[in-house]
C-alpha cells in the first residue's frame, strides 16, 4: 500500500491486487438541494475489510445503504463482482447486511430468523438445515436456536443478525454500526469475533462505524468521510501516522493529536519551524511538497511523540519550555496536559512519573512522526 493513494479517483489500490469486489463509480445522492454524497468513487478489493469511518451525518450509512440497494442513488453506478447492480433488488446483489438495531424478526425463533431468507428463496429444507447448522456452529448459537429474540442478550442478538447474513452465503457483508448498541466489554469481544470471522471466511466486508478503535483494529483500509466526501482512504497505520489533512488528523487518535500554530521561517533544504519564541529543525520531516519560508502552518504531533523532560533541558536546541497544567492517570501511562507559551497540548508519560501543577518542564517532539498542515487549506505539507 503506498501513501499516494488518490482519493476520489479510480486508483486501484487493492488489498491483494485482485479485481475489485465492490466498486462505486460517481455515486451521488441528494435530497432536494441537500447533497448527502458527492460523486464518490470507491473500489474495494476481493476479501478486503473496508471500514467507512466518520461522525454521524457524514453519509457513511447512506453510502452503505446505496451499496445494499436500500436507497436509490441520484446518479452513479454500483458494481458487485464486476456486475452492474445499480438497478437490482437488494436480494439479487449477493450481499448480507447487519444492522445496529439487530432488526431480528421478533415473532420468529432464532432458527426461523436465520432461515427466513432461505425459505423466501424456496431452498430445499435439508439444505436450509445444513446452512443454519453451519452458521450456528460458527457463531456458537446452537443452544439458542429455539429461543425468540426477546430471550437473548444484546451480544447474542447481534450474533444472530450476523448469522442471518452468513447463511445466505453472500460475497459481501455489510455492517451498519453493528456494535454501537452494545456495552464496552461486549463490543470488544464481538469486535474480535468479527475479525476472526473475516479471517475464516475471507469475504469482502464493508463496515460502517464512528468508533475509530473499531476502525483501526478491524480494517484493511479505512475511508475517513466528512460531509459526503471521502477525506482519506488508506491502511489504518497510514491514516494514523500520515493523515492527509487537518480533519483526518484531528478525527483519528485518542487522545487526539496536538496542533501547535507556527511559521516556517527558513525554507529550502534545511527548513526550520518557529513555534512561539523557539525554533525547531524540520530535517527529519518527509514533506509532500517543498516547504516555503513564511508559510503559516499547524504542527500536528501525537501525545506519544512528545517527550516530557526536566526543566533544566529547556535551553537545549529543539527543546521547548512548558508548564504542567494537570495529569490524567490512565493506568498503563499518564496523560499530561501542558501549556506551551499559551498553547495547550497533551503528552503521554510513564505512569510512574510524578508531576505537580505549574511545574516547569521541557518538551521534545519527534519531528519524523509529526505532521505539518497548511494553516489555510488544512492540507498536509
Amino acid at each position, binding site marked *: 500500500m503506498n501513501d499516494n493513494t488518490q482519493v476520489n479517483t479510480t486508483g486501484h489500490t487493492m488489498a491483494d491486487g485482485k479485481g475489485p469486489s465492490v466498486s462505486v463509480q460517481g455515486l451521488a445522492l441528494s435530497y432536494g438541494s441537500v447533497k448527502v454524497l458527492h460523486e464518490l468513487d470507491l473500489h474495494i478489493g476481493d476479501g478486503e475489510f473496508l471500514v467507512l469511518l466518520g461522525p454521524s451525518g457524514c453519509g457513511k450509512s447512506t453510502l452503505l445503504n446505496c451499496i*445494499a440497494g*436500500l436507497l436509490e442513488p441520484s446518479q452513479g453506478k454500483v458494481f458487485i463482482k464486476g456486475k452492474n447492480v445499480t438497478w437490482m433488488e437488494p436480494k439479487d446483489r449477493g450481499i448480507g447486511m447487519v444492522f445496529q438495531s*439487530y432488526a431480528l424478526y421478533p415473532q420468529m425463533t432464532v432458527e426461523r430468523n436465520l432461515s*427466513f431468507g432461505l425459505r423466501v428463496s424456496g431452498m430445499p429444507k435439508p439444505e436450509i438445515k445444513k446452512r443454519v447448522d453451519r452458521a450456528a456452529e460458527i457463531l456458537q448459537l446452537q443452544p439458542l436456536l429455539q429461543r425468540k429474540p426477546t430471550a437473548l442478550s444484546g451480544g447474542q442478538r447481534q450474533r444472530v443478525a450476523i448469522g442471518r447474513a452468513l447463511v445466505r452465503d453472500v460475497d459481501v457483508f455489510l455492517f451498519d454500526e453493528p456494535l454501537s448498541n452494545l456495552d464496552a466489554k461486549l463490543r470488544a469481544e464481538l469486535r474480535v469475533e468479527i475479525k476472526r470471522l473475516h479471517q475464516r471466511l475471507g469475504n469482502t466486508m464493508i463496515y460502517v462505524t464512528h468508533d475509530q478503535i473499531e476502525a483501526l483494529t478491524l480494517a484493511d483500509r479505512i475511508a475517513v468521510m466528512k460531509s459526503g466526501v471521502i477525506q482519506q482512504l488508506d491502511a489504518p497505520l497510514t491514516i494514523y501516522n500520515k493523515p492527509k489533512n487537518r480533519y483526518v488528523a484531528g478525527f483519528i487518535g485518542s487522545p487526539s493529536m496536538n496542533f501547535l500554530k507556527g511559521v516556517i521561517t527558513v525554507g529550502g533544504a534545511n527548513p526550520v519551524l518557529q513555534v512561539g519564541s523557539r525554533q525547531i529543525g524540520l530535517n527529519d520531516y518527509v514533506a509532500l511538497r517543498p516547504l516555503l519560508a513564511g508559510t503559516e502552518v499547524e504542527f500536528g504531533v501525537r501525545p506519544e511523540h512528545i517527550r516530557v523532560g526536566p526543566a533544566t533541558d529547556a535551553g537545549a536546541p529543539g527543546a521547548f519550555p512548558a508548564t504542567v497544567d494537570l495529569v490524567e492517570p490512565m493506568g498503563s501511562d499518564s496523560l499530561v496536559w501542558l501549556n506551551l507559551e499559551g498553547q495547550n497540548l497533551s503528552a503521554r508519560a510513564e505512569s510512574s512519573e510524578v508531576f505537580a501543577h505549574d511545574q516547569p518542564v521541557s518538551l521534545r517532539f519527534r519531528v519524523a512522526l509529526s505532521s505539518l498542515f497548511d494553516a489555510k487549506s488544512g492540507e498536509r505539507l
Partner: protein
Amino acid sequence: MSISTTTSSNEPSGPKPKQMFAPGRMLVYAVLIVTSIYWLLPLYVMLITSFKNLDEIRDGNVFIPGSHFSFDSWDRAWNHICTGLNCNGISPGFWNSVIITVPSVIVSIAVASVSGYSLANWPFRFGELFFTILIVGSFIPYQVMLYPVVLLTASLHIFGTLYAVILVHTIFGLPILTLLFRNYFASLPPELFKAARVDGAGFWRIFGQVMAPMSIPIFTVAVILQVTGIWNDYLFGVVFAGKTNYPMTVQLNNIFTSTMGVKEYNVEMAATLLTGLVPLAIYFFSGKYFVRGIAAGAVKG
C-alpha cells in the same frame, strides 16, 4: 457516636413510609368513585328495570330491584315487540347488524392495513399527496357526502339493500383506518423492513410474515373502532338499508317512537341492553391485547 439500629425509627432508612390517607390520594379516590357511580348508575337502573314487571315500574322506586325476577321482558324485546309495523322483536335487526358489521370490518381493515403499510414503507410518486388527501377526507362530515352517495348507490342498483350499507361503511372507514395503520407501521423500526428486503422478501411477504405479526395491537384497535362504530351507526342504516333491512339501532329507535298504549319501559330497557351487548363484549375481550408488547426484542429496550 455510632449508628445503632435502635435510633433508626426516626432516621430515614429503607423504603419511605407511605401515608394511607394522604389528602392527594383521598382526592384521587373520591374523583374515581364519583365518576364510576356516575357511569354505572344508569346501567344499574336499566338492568333492574328490565327485570321488573310493569306494576313494579309504576310504583316508581327507580333504584330498588323488583320482587319477582323474570326474563319475560327480554324475551319480548328479542322476539315480540313491535318495531314500526312488524312485531318480531329486535332479533331481525340484530342479524341485519351482524350481516352489515362482519364484512365491513373485515374488508375495511384488510384494505386499510395494506394501504397504510405501502404508504409507510414503499414510497411512491405522489404518495405524500395521496396521504394528505386521505387526512382531509377523514375530516369531512358524512352529511356533506350523503346525497351524492345515495345517488351513487342508486345508480349501482344496490340502494335500499344491505350491500349499500356494507359498501358505505367500508369506504367511510378507510381514511381513518389507513391513517392509523400508516402511523403504526411508520413507527416500527425501519431496519426490520430493510432486513426483510435484503433477505429477499417482497411486498406481500414482508406484510404477511414480518409486519402483520408485529401489529396485533393496532389490528385490535382497528377492530374495536370499526365494530363499535358500525354497530352503533344509525345514519347510514336508516338512509341506505331500506325499510325491511334496518339494523338493530334503527329498530331500537322504532320501538321507542312507535309504541301505542302503555309504554313498556322494562322491554325498552331490555332491548337497549341487547343492542349494547356487542360493543360491550368487544371491549371486554380485546382489552388485554392493548397492553401486549409491540416489537419487544426487535430493538434494544
